[in-house]
């Protein structure tokens, strides 16, 4: 700790519209050139804390106490016009969703130069030159050409680079990054984290990193603040938080993080289905050379986008096959095809030896009985105007298995089976938490006794501690019911925890398939290797993105910074994001 901190937050409290306390007595200090991670699950107040520093709290919320000293001013007491000078100029901000944080109808150039012209009073040409330099700084190819493009023409990773360039263009002393990589694929995430580290090293920018991901924390942070329900649980250097956590909640949080490296698979899960998996029994689901392409583009420039390209897979009863890949790899399209929600152009999908495509009407309806789905977003996959009990009973009555009171009774029994009280049947989905809703979705899916469950990123919208519960529930039910499961995920740590076998997809093809341990520990395909290397490891000693580790904290020249930006040869940075370099 040298000299006065850059930002000293003390005793911050925030109250909601009805006087409920959302954040209570939160305080921390950020030194120049330091990364402070604020960690917490949803509802922990981590984002509210950041927003209050910028005077951007939602209308009904108020700061009820505390002070935030930054450059001789108290940020919490500045009026709007004074804050406007601080925002952008002295404190930059990078948001979670690069899609919605950029204005879709304005060119990158206009958005980049706007801040320069307001804060620095630069002319059009000078602002454009500065913006191009900033875009170059974040390693975007052809920055001058990029200035004329619109956000939708850029990939998610490129957009987040533009956001960082926009935040860095005024060389702020503090950069607030609110879940900057949550919406991105792992390989892109690693690049963005490295870029943030590089900016910090080059300009001495302090970073306030808000995240729920302990892996990201371990990779980047110097110090950590753990929040829970608006209260500070623990604060300390990253090493101490990970190796000697004092608060019980920190320990729970760390224990719940699935680690992608070996040795963490619960033996119960692994042995449960080992008997059924991989033996001579015929597969429940057989996918044979399935292809699906979409027509894209306008009337005159027809393009064929091949989403799934000749994929063959099989899943036995009681087995979980994880389908892994980044966005656009075709894993979701394949899952939807198995459910019959998507047509296929070529190949066959066999369920218990019967082709789904050739059966029609009643036979198809009967087959429906055997495939069910758990969706990614439990907030959208339950009808908001249908009571939970009715939603669970719906498949039962529709398939003519049970009706009336019998179906309702079964729904209540199913609720108990997934660990919820039976009287939840009379609630509406919005009265339930995310984890509870996902349990309801699971109850609904298993109610009719399916043979195959398609789970499309079933835990990616849940908090880590809830994730673990839901995964355990799925594993237990699967073992008991002998379900085959197609588990679609981008998260290798979760895959190691639940799956027996893995198929890695890239650009519509399966590049590698095999038992989980074999694929994750001894990957053969270079893409699989890149994917595994990019996963943040929740171990600060192995971190690759903290400036102090790789890059000298002072006296940065371009060469050193670029070495940090591109990694140590494990991740082919340019390969996954063509805009880079």
């Amino acid at each position, binding site marked *: 700790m040298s000299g006065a901190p850059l930002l000293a937050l003390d005793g911050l409290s925030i109250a909601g*519209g009805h006087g409920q306390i959302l954040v209570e007595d939160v305080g921390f200090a950020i030194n120049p050139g330091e990364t402070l991670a604020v960690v917490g699950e949803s509802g922990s107040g981590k984002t509210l804390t950041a927003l209050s520093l910028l005077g951007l709290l939602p*209308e009904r919320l108020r700061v009820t106490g505390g002070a935030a000293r930054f450059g001789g001013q108290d940020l919490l007491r500045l009026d709007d016009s004074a804050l406007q000078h601080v925002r952008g100029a002295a404190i930059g901000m990078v948001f979670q969703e690069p899609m919605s944080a950029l204005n879709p109808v304005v060119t990158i150039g206009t958005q980049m130069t706007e801040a320069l012209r307001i804060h620095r009073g630069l002319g059009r040409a000078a602002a454009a030159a500065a913006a191009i330099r900033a875009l170059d700084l974040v390693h975007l190819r052809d920055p001058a050409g990029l200035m004329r493009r619109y956000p939708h023409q850029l990939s998610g990773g490129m957009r987040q680079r533009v956001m960082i360039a926009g935040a860095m263009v005024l060389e702020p002393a503090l950069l607030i990054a609110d879940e900057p990589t949550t919406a991105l694929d792992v390989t892109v995430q690693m690049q963005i984290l490295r870029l943030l580290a590089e900016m910090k090293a080059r300009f001495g920018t302090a970073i306030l990193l808000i995240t729920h991901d302990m892996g990201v924390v371990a990779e980047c942070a110097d110090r950590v603040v753990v929040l829970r329900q608006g209260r500070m649980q623990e604060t300390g250097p990253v090493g101490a938080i990970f190796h000697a956590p004092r608060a019980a909640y920190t320990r729970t949080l760390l224990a719940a993080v699935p680690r992608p490296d070996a040795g963490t698979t619960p033996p119960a899960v692994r042995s449960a289905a080992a008997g059924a998996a991989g033996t001579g029994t015929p597969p429940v689901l057989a996918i044979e050379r399935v292809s699906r392409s979409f027509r894209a583009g306008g009337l005159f420039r027809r393009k064929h986008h091949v989403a799934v390209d000749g994929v063959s897979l099989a899943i036995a009863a009681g087995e979980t096959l994880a389908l892994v890949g980044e966005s656009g790899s075709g894993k979701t399209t394949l899952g939807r095809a198995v459910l019959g929600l998507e047509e296929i152009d070529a190949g066959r999908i066999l369920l218990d030896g019967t082709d789904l495509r050739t059966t029609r009407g009643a036979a198809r*309806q009967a087959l429906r009985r055997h495939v069910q789905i758990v969706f990614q977003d439990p907030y959208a*996959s339950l009808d908001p105007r*249908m009571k939970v009990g009715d939603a669970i009973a719906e498949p039962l009555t*529709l398939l003519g298995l049970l009706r009336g009171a019998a179906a309702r009774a079964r729904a209540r029994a199913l609720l108990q089976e997934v*660990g919820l009280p039976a009287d939840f049947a009379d609630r509406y989905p*919005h*009265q339930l938490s995310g984890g509870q809703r996902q349990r309801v979705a699971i109850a609904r899916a298993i109610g009719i006794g399916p043979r195959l469950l398609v789970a499309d990123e079933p835990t990616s919208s849940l908090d880590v501690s809830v994730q673990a*519960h839901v995964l355990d529930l799925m594993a237990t039910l699967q073992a008991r019911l002998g379900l085959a499961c197609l588990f679609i995920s981008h998260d290798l740590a979760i895959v190691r925890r639940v799956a027996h076998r893995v198929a890695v997809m890239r650009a519509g093809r399966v590049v590698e398939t095999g038992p989980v341990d074999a694929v994750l520990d001894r990957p053969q395909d270079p893409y699989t290797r890149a994917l595994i290397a990019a996963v943040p490891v929740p171990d600060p000693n192995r971190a690759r993105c903290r400036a102090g580790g790789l890059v000298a904290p002072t006296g940065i020249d371009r060469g050193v910074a670029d070495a940090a930006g591109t990694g140590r040869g494990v991740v082919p940075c340019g390969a996954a994001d063509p805009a880079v370099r």
Partner: protein
Amino acid sequence: MSAAVEIVAAPPREAPWIARLLRAPGGAIGAALILLLLFSALFGDALVPYSPTRMAAGRPLLAPSLAHLFGTDEFGRDEFSRVLAGARLTLMVGLVAVGLSFSAGLIVAMLAVLARGWRGAAVMRLMDVLFSFTDTLIALACVAVLGASLQNAVLAVGIAAIPFYARTAHAAALVERGKPYCEAAAVAGAGPLRLALRHLLPNIMPVMIVVATMGVSTAILATAALSFLGLGAQPPMPEWGLMLAGARSYMERAPWLMLFPGLAIALTVLGFNLLGDALRDAIDPGRRGR
């Protein structure tokens, strides 16, 4: 199962929508105005000092006084009695016209969503074509064919508004149709009819109710306009639009004859609009602050 940890933290029940509605100032004022209209419509008969069609209840074109609160018109009819009696007509007009266009529009939209493909598109393009004519023009055409009477005017206004409701419902239904819960229902074996009735309809209803509430005011205005043009209500009906038309000739000698029916229309329209606005804020979860 170690689920106990998360069960504790169920979100609290929020205030019912009706409480949220009345807490908003716009909602309270709107509701008060609509209640006033409803009260006049229900009990106007018992309250009026004179029969609304009785000629020479006083001398013609009397200024407002205690005996004749709103004055008298050119035939000596009591203006207050007529405005009060008009409330029932106006309420009927609004509800019947909106009820017609609302239900027809909803059916058309649901059919279009169910049919999908080119049939659905054809239905909606037809609606677009109708939509491109102004409501008044369609209403005029209908009245021209059916003849001028209040019933026909209401029918015409109702028909003219069908495309509006169909398009709104169709757009809302398409949004809902793309959400995972609809796919989940399809995977559970729900056919298109069940999907439409059990899932889509309840989910677009909040939006549609709000739209319809505001639509009542549009329908009232449109019918009043038709009556004003002599194509709707016929004398001696105490219809506000018709009363305005009659009062036009005496604008300078008896301005109160225009003031009171005009004020009645304006307040009714304001009431439905305020109520619709507040209803949207109260029902739409997206606008609900947490």
